[in-house]
């Protein structure tokens, strides 16, 4: 095909990606946006296949078939409650793809590919001119090295994130020396990149980059707590976007630049939104544990003798009398898969003339917008999901707040106790409501590991038990009343 036509079609694909993201700015246009974006991808793929450089279709057909199969099964089988894991896994595959592409590019430009493992470590005679003339060759080598590094790190990092979210890995491991150990690893891989650029035929340096980066991904993410995984994933996603944009520079390809920049900014902005919503800096999320807190807070002292508990049918009586109820979901609702039960409870209340809204904290659950997706699955209309800033002033006029599986995002210590590690994090002020019902299995803390004075307040009752079971019992009691 005429190269101008090819470039033009790539540009069209880039515009489709822009329109896709633009569609995502409104729920109404979002489905169409996603389809436009997918269309852009299809066009870019087709044009690449027709572009003449591709002659051997066997591997491609095999890869596309296998990949589509796996991707489709994953996408259609996954439960909505497991969305964070799914995104982590997809992100890992993306990293793996970048890694293998850069490796393939390296060995193909090198000319002589090794046949056995011992051969891999034998240096080959090559100069940067294999990769492009003059400075372009060096730039290409640097970009290959960096892409391998980012790709490998994203691969293992995302897999660890997946394992943590899926609760396959519960404990935290880190390199001895913590950030310093990681720093040494990072410096070592950077040195390997420099070696590769200086002596492009030094295949052992390439192997070293791959190995170091894979390990670095493991060690960087393993010490980070499970609930902080979304931040890690957004950040890794942003890196992969920037890497794609850099590749676009090398290839002079507009669609890579446009798509890569969009992904890069998206990841960074989501990271920042999460950090602001938690009132923590990015460094703190990545390297710090949560601030240790001035004094150790004694949970027993806070709770002792002050916690009231109730049965679901008692709560149902409260709900029947209420004019306005706000439901505040958290990670526990996802764990209990209680979203449908919650919707049914809300339906019953509304049938009795109660006004029901949902108060959604920006970092409730395990990824931004997690609760919105779950409740959308349960067919709760999205205009009932009210953001923190807008729901907070209404709590004073609310008769009952039902907190289901949320903890940290309702903890009044964030507002009041200056020494607390979560001090300054904006929260849902559920304690301002006339009555608070908290549904969880025990008094055990949430992700931040802190006791929650909300549970000990006079106007709070605890309903102990699995979230779904408790809610179903409330609905039954309410319908019989």
């Amino acid at each position, binding site marked *: 095909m005429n190269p101008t036509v090819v470039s033009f079609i790539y540009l069209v694909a880039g515009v489709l990606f822009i329109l896709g993201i633009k569609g995502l700015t409104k729920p109404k246009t979002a489905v169409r946006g*996603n389809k436009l974006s997918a269309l852009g991808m299809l066009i870019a793929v087709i044009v690449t296949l027709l572009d003449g450089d591709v002659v051997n279709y066997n591997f491609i057909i095999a890869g596309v078939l296998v990949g589509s199969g796996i991707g489709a099964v994953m996408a259609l089988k996954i439960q909505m409650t497991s969305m964070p894991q799914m995104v982590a896994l997809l992100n890992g595959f993306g990293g793996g793809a970048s890694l293998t592409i850069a490796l393939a590019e390296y060995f193909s430009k090198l000319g002589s590919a090794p046949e056995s493992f011992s051969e891999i470590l034998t240096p080959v005679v090559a100069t940067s001119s294999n990769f492009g003339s003059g400075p372009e060759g060096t730039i290409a080598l640097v970009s290959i090295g960096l892409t391998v590094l980012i790709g490998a790190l994203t691969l293992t990092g995302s897999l660890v994130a997946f394992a943590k979210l899926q609760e396959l890995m519960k404990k935290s491991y880190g390199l001895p020396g913590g950030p310093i150990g990681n720093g040494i690893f990072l410096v070592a891989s950077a040195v390997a990149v420099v070696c590769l650029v200086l002596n492009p035929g030094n295949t052992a340096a390439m192997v070293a980059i791959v190995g170091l980066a894979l390990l670095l991904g493991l060690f960087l993410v393993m010490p980070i707590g499970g609930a902080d995984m979304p931040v890690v994933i957004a950040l890794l996603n942003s890196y992969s976007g920037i890497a794609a944009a850099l590749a676009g520079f090398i290839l002079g390809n507009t669609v890579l630049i446009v798509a890569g920049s969009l992904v890069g900014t998206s990841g960074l902005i989501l990271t920042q939104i999460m950090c602001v919503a938690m009132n923590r800096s990015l460094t703190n999320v990545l390297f710090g544990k949560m601030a240790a807190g001035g004094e150790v807070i004694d949970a027993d002292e806070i709770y002792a003798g002050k916690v009231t508990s109730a049965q679901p049918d008692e709560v149902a009586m409260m709900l029947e009398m209420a004019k306005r109820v706000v439901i505040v979901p958290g990670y526990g609702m996802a764990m209990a898969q209680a979203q449908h039960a919650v919707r049914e409870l809300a339906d019953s209340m509304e049938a009795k003339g109660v006004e029901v809204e949902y108060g959604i904290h920006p970092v409730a659950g395990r990824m931004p917008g997690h609760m919105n997706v779950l409740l959308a699955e349960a067919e709760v209309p999205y205009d009932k999901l009210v953001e923190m800033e807008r729901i907070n002033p209404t709590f004073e006029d609310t008769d009952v707040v039902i907190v289901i599986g949320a903890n940290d995002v309702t903890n009044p210590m964030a507002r009041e106790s200056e020494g607390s590690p979560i001090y300054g994090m904006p929260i849902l002020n559920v304690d301002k409501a006339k009555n608070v019902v908290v549904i969880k299995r025990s008094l055990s803390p949430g992700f931040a590991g802190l006791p929650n004075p909300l549970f000990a307040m006079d106007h709070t009752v605890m309903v102990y038990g699995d979230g779904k079971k408790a809610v179903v019992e409330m609905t039954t009691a309410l319908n019989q009343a």
Partner: protein
Amino acid sequence: MEILILLLALFILSLFLGVELITKVPPTLHTPLMSGTNAVSGITLVGALLAAGSDSSPLLVNGLGFVAVTLATINVVGGYLVTNRMLAMFKRK
């Protein structure tokens, strides 16, 4: 070099555009945004296709290309499908 400046200009404008667009996405759609941009980052598939389909090159390159195509396709197909599944659930009252 003239071309490099133009690419740089394109990159900078895309970043500005990205910031303007992404900050407009409402919190309700943040999860689909994450999976959707994840799918977009599968645009590396373009590079994977070139690696897997190149002609004379050694088997290792084609093999790596095959792995790359598979992984990138999972990313793309899985990402768009799951995003579509989520978005289809969002309804107004």
